[in-house]
């Protein structure tokens, strides 16, 4: 198995593990970590694609895409953490649910 194929499997697994965390973990910070894990998976897939031809230099286009992706990912992470901080300042809620209502949720009362 050449490194690019090996790391493609790893990339896919990292992506799905991240997705699982995003869906199942209730803690806000863990969701953000899981999102980062998902993006790492995508980046790894792209770089593995770029590296598949060992005889020539690696494909620079995915490299450029991943560098752009890293910037996007830190921007999203920073914003999400700031939102968590603001939420924490006024309440003690640390969980965020997708499928169920939070016990204290009053979304319908603007």
């Amino acid at each position, binding site marked *: 198995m050449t490194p690019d194929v090996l790391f493609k499997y790893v990339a896919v*697994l990292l992506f799905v593990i991240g997705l699982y965390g995003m869906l199942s973990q209730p*803690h806000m910070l863990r969701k953000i970590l899981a999102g*980062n894990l998902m993006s790492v998976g995508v980046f790894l897939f792209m770089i593995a694609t770029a590296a598949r031809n060992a005889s020539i230099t690696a494909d620079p286009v995915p490299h*450029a895409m991943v560098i752009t992706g890293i910037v996007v990912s*830190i921007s999203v992470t920073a914003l999400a953490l700031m939102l968590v901080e603001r939420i924490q300042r006024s309440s003690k809620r640390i969980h965020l649910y997708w*499928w169920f209502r939070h016990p204290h949720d009053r979304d319908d009362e603007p």
Partner: protein
Amino acid sequence: MGPVGGVFDGLLALVLLVLSIRLLFVSSLFHAVVLFIALGLLMGLTWVRLQAPDVALAEAAIGAALTGVLFIDLLYKLTHRNNIRSSVSERLIYEQTMPRRWLTACLSALVCIALLAPLLMVAAQSPTTGAGLTPAVSAAMAATGVTHEVTAVLLNFRSFDTLLELTVLFVAVLAALTLRVMDTSSLPTAIPKPPDPLMDGLWRLLLPLLVAVSGYLLWLGSFTSGGAFQSGIVMAATIILLSLTGQRTLELLPPLVWRALLVVGLLNFIVVGAAMLMLEGAFLQYPQGWAGGLILLLEVTASLTIATALVTLVLGLSVPAMFKRYPDPR
């Protein structure tokens, strides 16, 4: 690479997977963050193994360092400001009843397995040969004004993406600003740090070195791994380090200068792009022979903007004063 390389790759892959699973399920949140930082460092190693030194530079600085600073800073504030025992805020506690928790886990697992199967098939069947766009890039390199392929893609072939990438940073800063300005509750002030001889010595030694490295990376970009982005990150890391040792950094800048630094890279892109639109007929189409100079010009301002934006984003959590500089219209 031979068998040694293969074993190394296998181990690396295994460690990556174990780390990623551990970081989701370890009970202490602090441990999870530390594991994430470790994962970032190992990713840097993986990029090197996959012949992507440019990405490795970016990942080591951002994935491991800056993201780590962001998370740890937030954790520290949450545990100390809220005056709650760390075990409450850090550990996995559930506010929901068991059946709902299990239902969530099962549903998530179902979705993930349903997606994992086709993804594994894709990984198994993905073509193992094929050069992607490498030949096309190599053929066009002569006209790009630089000799490093990644820089050519970032600042010539797909320069529009790079403008948008800077815009992403800009909009993140704007969003952070919005959060701060619209905040009605009182803001905590940064914790004053006692003077510390060792830290003072450290930054005095490192500052010139890091500034030199940042400039060096910028210069390297036109012919080998490096460039505006990496240079900007190193610059940002330097300023963040200074801030963490208790020095005042960006707060010292007049507000207008701070705002100007945040948009200079973007406006420069747009001015150059618009000029090329008038002269050459397409946005950011460089004229023959001018590409190298224009790219360098764009890179210098872009790295300034990247550095300022990253510092603002990372320190925005701990130095709210940074945002107290956006005037009201009235």
